[in-house]
């Protein structure tokens, strides 16, 4: 992989991007085009759909068929794209607030249907674009602009939510772990059916500042120290995993997708009509 080749997947005339210096979103954007490049996918047959939020601005910079849609609704728009054009690789990119709070209902139902989508969640544990409010993944007892006395809510575990809702490929990585991030996005793109890749990313501007890590490096170090590979985590007692980020590929199963089943139905009815 050469960096100059990866640049061809970006709309360089749309730079500079809106993200803060040191933001992890750029790492995920690079990992994504790196994965596309390694898989030799045709850019004209890729559609990327996003909602609203810092990470959702990624669609403006990616040189594919791109849709910057409504807050929380990216998965629903993407479902329409995929069903209208089954030959497309359809990717949804969005943040924890976008996909798991306002978009939570669409997320679980796309998982349940095993819709052939790849969902990349940029999880920075906070609403960045609106200035640092707590999200469904903000850890308990951490601070946010709307949790000035500490967050009293429990958080979603994205991986468990995806698996229990029916997603057939589920992985988690962090922006510190670039190699794994590229690998998981690649595997997600290759996977047939609903794939969910959660990537922990740093919002040092808000989450970091509210919680004693105002520098990007502090947050990357945090991801490095708190991360535990899945294989190791499986052998650890649950109390030791408290506050840790388990990274790895949690589920990778083969199962007929909604899209395959619907295509079969169309074929069956077409033959029936002919008889």
């Amino acid at each position, binding site marked *: 992989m050469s960096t100059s080749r990866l640049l061809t997947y970006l*709309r360089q005339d*749309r730079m500079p991007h809106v993200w803060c210096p040191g933001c992890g979103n750029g790492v995920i954007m690079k990992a994504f085009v790196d994965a596309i490049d390694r898989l030799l996918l045709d*850019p*004209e*047959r890729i*559609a990327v*759909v996003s909602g609203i939020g810092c990470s959702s601005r990624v*669609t*403006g910079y990616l*040189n*594919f*068929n*791109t*849709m*910057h*849609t*409504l807050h929380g*609704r990216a998965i*629903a*728009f*993407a*479902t*329409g*794209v995929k*069903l*209208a*054009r089954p030959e*497309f690789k359809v990717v949804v990119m969005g943040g924890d607030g976008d996909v798991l709070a306002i978009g939570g*209902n*669409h997320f679980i*139902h796309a998982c349940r249907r095993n819709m052939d989508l790849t969902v990349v969640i940029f999880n920075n544990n906070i609403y960045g674009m609106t200035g640092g409010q707590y999200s469904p993944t903000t850890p308990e007892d951490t601070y946010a602009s709307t949790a000035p006395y500490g967050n009293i809510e429990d958080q979603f575990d994205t991986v468990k939510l995806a698996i229990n809702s029916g997603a057939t490929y589920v992985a988690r990585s962090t922006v510190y772990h670039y190699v794994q991030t590229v690998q998981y996005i690649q595997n997600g793109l290759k996977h047939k059916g609903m794939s969910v890749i959660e990537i922990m990313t740093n919002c040092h501007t808000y989450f970091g500042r509210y919680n004693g890590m105002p520098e990007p490096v502090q947050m990357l170090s945090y991801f490095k120290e708190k991360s535990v590979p899945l294989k190791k985590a499986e052998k650890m007692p649950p109390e030791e995993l408290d506050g840790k980020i388990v990274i790895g590929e949690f589920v990778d199963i083969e199962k007929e997708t909604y899209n395959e089943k*619907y295509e079969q*139905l*169309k074929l069956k*009815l*077409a033959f029936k*009509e002919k008889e």
Partner: protein
Amino acid sequence: MSEYVLMQGDEACALGAIKAGCRFFAGYPITPATEIAETMAKELPKVGGTFIQMEDEIASAAAIVGASLAGEKAMTATSGPGFSLMQEVIGYASMVEAPTVFVNVQRGGPSTGMPTKLAQGDIMQARWGTHGDHPVIAIYPSTVEEVYRYIVTAFNYAEHYRTPVVFLMDEVLGHMRESLYLPPDSELKSVPRAGESVLEDDDIFQPFIGDDQMLAAPLIKMGKSRFHVSGLVHDESGFPVGAAVDANRLLRRLDHKIRLHADEINICDEYMTDDAEILIVAYGSVARSALRAVKIAREDKINVGLFRPITIWPFPATRLRQLLKKTSAVIVVEMNLGQIVYEVSRLNRRSTKLELLSKVNGEMVTPQEILDTIAKVKSEVLDL
């Protein structure tokens, strides 16, 4: 091939849409629009199209915009509560100029209201339901045959003007079965969607460039051109811009593309308006009672006529203004607390006597009620 068939309004809506080239439908069950989804679930896969029942109306609306931008003609159908949920997506469809059709089979509201009863309470919501200034086209037929014909028109307007079209129906129209003439294909022309590229290799597709008529370039299918759309204020390329001049240009063009073409978009029907001293304005299923009332009144030698807007938005102001000049009184009949009456009032510069016959109990306005209003207005204005 043409023939007469017995069909329900909701069913005619679905079958007419398929005739118009609709190949994607996403919906959520709701009375009295469910039969549209049921018909689509049965018929779409047979013609190579796709039906999906989404998790709610927001998702249904979003899915049809996704499918439309990807390259398929797409529609959803709902009733009041679902229509409220769809409003944000309708605004998005206006902004990205996605050809889409949103059917609202109206029922009694507000809130859950009267799910199985007749009402026309969503007329203003069809116009102003989503936030911000935005263009909209709304069509509202009166018979099952018109549902079948005008849903094709709705799809054609959506493609030509690149805009969401609201197709209004009501509980009576949706659930009524009547005989209709199934027009042959030659009578129902549909505007096709362009392919993946209309340009030479090196040119970039500008999805939002307006022509001298303020119309956006015809939408092409997602693919070769790799275009971008956003609900943010954008320039011709589709990418967000912050300049005041660009924002002004976009908002004005979106408004003008409908406003400047109102006369070619407007469809209305008239019955005995030439010598009418009293003009009835009615639309949707209610216009059927109004037509009956006019026929009875004419037998009694009362000069009454019916004006029936079929395009509700933009409101057919040009024609109504002409009629207002030569009538002595106008009666607006509607199954709400008065919505279209304000449009008529706005055009009524000579202060012609304007009477509202409003009914909100869920039961159809009867011809007798309209005849009573005609008699009242006649005694007040004509018999002086």
